[in-house]
């Protein structure tokens, strides 16, 4: 099984990947709290982008409503913790279960009724929006007023309850991201990965080769939703507050998928690179504007949008595919 993960990967790629991981491992020792918070954001987007990529990059199903899975899972774990004292590591399973159920429900309706392409994307937005308004009126989690987790002292690390300092969150998230990377590599090199790519490229041809297209699309949605649920749980316990208007919003869904699109859809390292580039870009723009004394709201996002435009126009497949070619790392990873 291990050998399958590294099969066909050039030695240079493994070394670079190892160096990159080592850097991430020691990073908290080298940087201050502000940079650490940015690194956490990078990992958050890298992981969530990876989860979304399973559905879009592998199986070719464009979801613009992934905030639904983040939000539902975040609320599930938070509500279990606040109302029943059930810790996140127990609650995460129910959160995953509910997210997967949502994904399967949407997938079942869409794929059974033959909805695809633009229509599927808009259906996913619609469900996220529907859920947002639903949560706005869901009194058990305080509706639009927002749902809050009790904040403890940062000096006490309690990993079992996900309460503690940012460094703890950083390492937990790093572990999850690494596991997700390996998991996706494992999926992609297996039969299921080939089947997904076939469905992405030509569903009709895939079916005549014996692939149960409906089933494999459903599996993709389930895995993607389940992985995304983990981001939601993390989000709830890291930020300690949840507002339906924020967590379920369409702009949040878009934010989640920009990383993999900029990095390179369908590649494994793309979502990670995309998250790094986007987050660093956004933060440095804020810093520069701040230093120059411009504190106009929105200026950062305008610059952000311009960068997106440039990337999508000049690097249609994202940053990673041309970069990996230049680094001589072959066509995968």
């Amino acid at each position: 099984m291990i050998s399958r993960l590294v099969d066909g990967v050039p030695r240079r790629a493994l070394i670079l990947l190892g160096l990159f991981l080592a850097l991430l491992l020691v990073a908290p020792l080298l940087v201050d709290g502000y940079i650490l918070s940015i690194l956490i954001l990078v990992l958050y987007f890298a992981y969530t982008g990876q989860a979304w990529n399973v559905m879009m990059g592998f199986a070719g199903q464009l979801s613009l409503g992934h905030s639904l899975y983040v939000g539902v899972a975040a609320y599930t774990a938070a509500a279990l913790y606040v109302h029943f004292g059930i810790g996140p590591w127990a609650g995460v399973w129910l959160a995953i279960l509910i997210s997967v159920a949502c994904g399967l429900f949407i997938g079942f309706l869409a794929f059974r009724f033959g909805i695809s392409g633009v229509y599927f994307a808009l259906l996913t937005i619609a469900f996220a929006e529907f859920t947002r308004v639903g949560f706005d009126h869901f009194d058990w989690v305080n509706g639009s007023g927002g749902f809050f987790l009790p904040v403890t002292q940062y000096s006490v690390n309690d990993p079992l309850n996900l309460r503690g300092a940012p460094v703890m969150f950083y390492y937990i998230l790093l572990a999850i991201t690494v596991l997700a990377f390996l998991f996706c590599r494992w999926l992609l090199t297996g039969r299921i990965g080939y089947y997904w790519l076939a469905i992405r490229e030509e569903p009709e041809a895939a079916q005549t080769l014996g692939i149960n297209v409906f089933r494999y699309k459903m599996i993709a949605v389930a895995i993607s939703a389940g992985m995304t649920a983990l981001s939601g749980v993390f989000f709830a316990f890291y930020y300690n507050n949840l507002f339906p208007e924020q967590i379920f919003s369409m702009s949040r869904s878009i934010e989640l998928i920009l990383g993999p699109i900029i990095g390179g859809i369908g590649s494994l390292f793309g979502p990670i690179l995309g998250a790094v580039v986007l987050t660093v870009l956004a933060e440095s723009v804020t810093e520069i504007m701040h230093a120059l004394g411009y504190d106009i709201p929105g200026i950062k996002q305008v610059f952000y949008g311009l960068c997106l435009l440039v990337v999508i126009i000049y690097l249609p497949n994202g940053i990673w595919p041309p970069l990996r070619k230049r680094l001589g790392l072959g066509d995968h990873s």
Partner: protein
Amino acid sequence: MSAHLLTVDGISKSFRGLRAVSAASLTVPQGSIVSLIGPNGAGKTTCFNMIAGVFKPDEGSISFEGRRIDGLRPDLICHAGIGRTFQIVKPFKELTALQNVIVGALRTEPDVRVARRKAEAVLDRLGMLDKRDQPAAQLTLPERKRLEVARALATEPKLLLLDEVMAGLRPTETDQMVAVFKELNRQGVTILLIEHVMRAVMALSQQVVVLHHGQVIARGAPEEVVRDPAVLECYLGEEAEV
């Protein structure tokens, strides 16, 4: 039950009132090569699509190895042992030639590494091993047609449905393909093909079925069929290649 691998019995199909195939019957004996010919719009591809599970026939039945298969989904048809190619090729463009074939090989072999070896063997059989690492999008049309065959073949079908795989090939390439299919047939694969290129039809088939306006108008050995007056009439002015 019989020596017939495939039995198509009186199938019909209409699209918005237009009768594309009307009570067509044909049989494909085990180990044979049968050609389905006819002018454009005769209903050949619709017939194929019903056998391959894309459409369910309005009437009639289709049996494969004595089992009813009409109305089954295309993936189940594949599992039953029927492989097909598309008239308009549908390669997985972003995947390499080898990966394309691996997808087919994975039907019987869940382990990717074993499937890869199998796929290489199939590519080799079709003389495409040197193209293995090229993305399918970069292959020429004849190569894509061959890839289409390789992919179907990798699913280890007992019956291969070939939809105009010779179209657009040069005569020498056609002859190569004919040789490939003869060899496949010798190894035990039964073949049903739709073909316009009579050079290939004559060289390959033991039996020819002629479809015109959705109906079977003639069947028999190739030499007989091409002399059949009804066939000549429906082709008159149609096919320069006859």
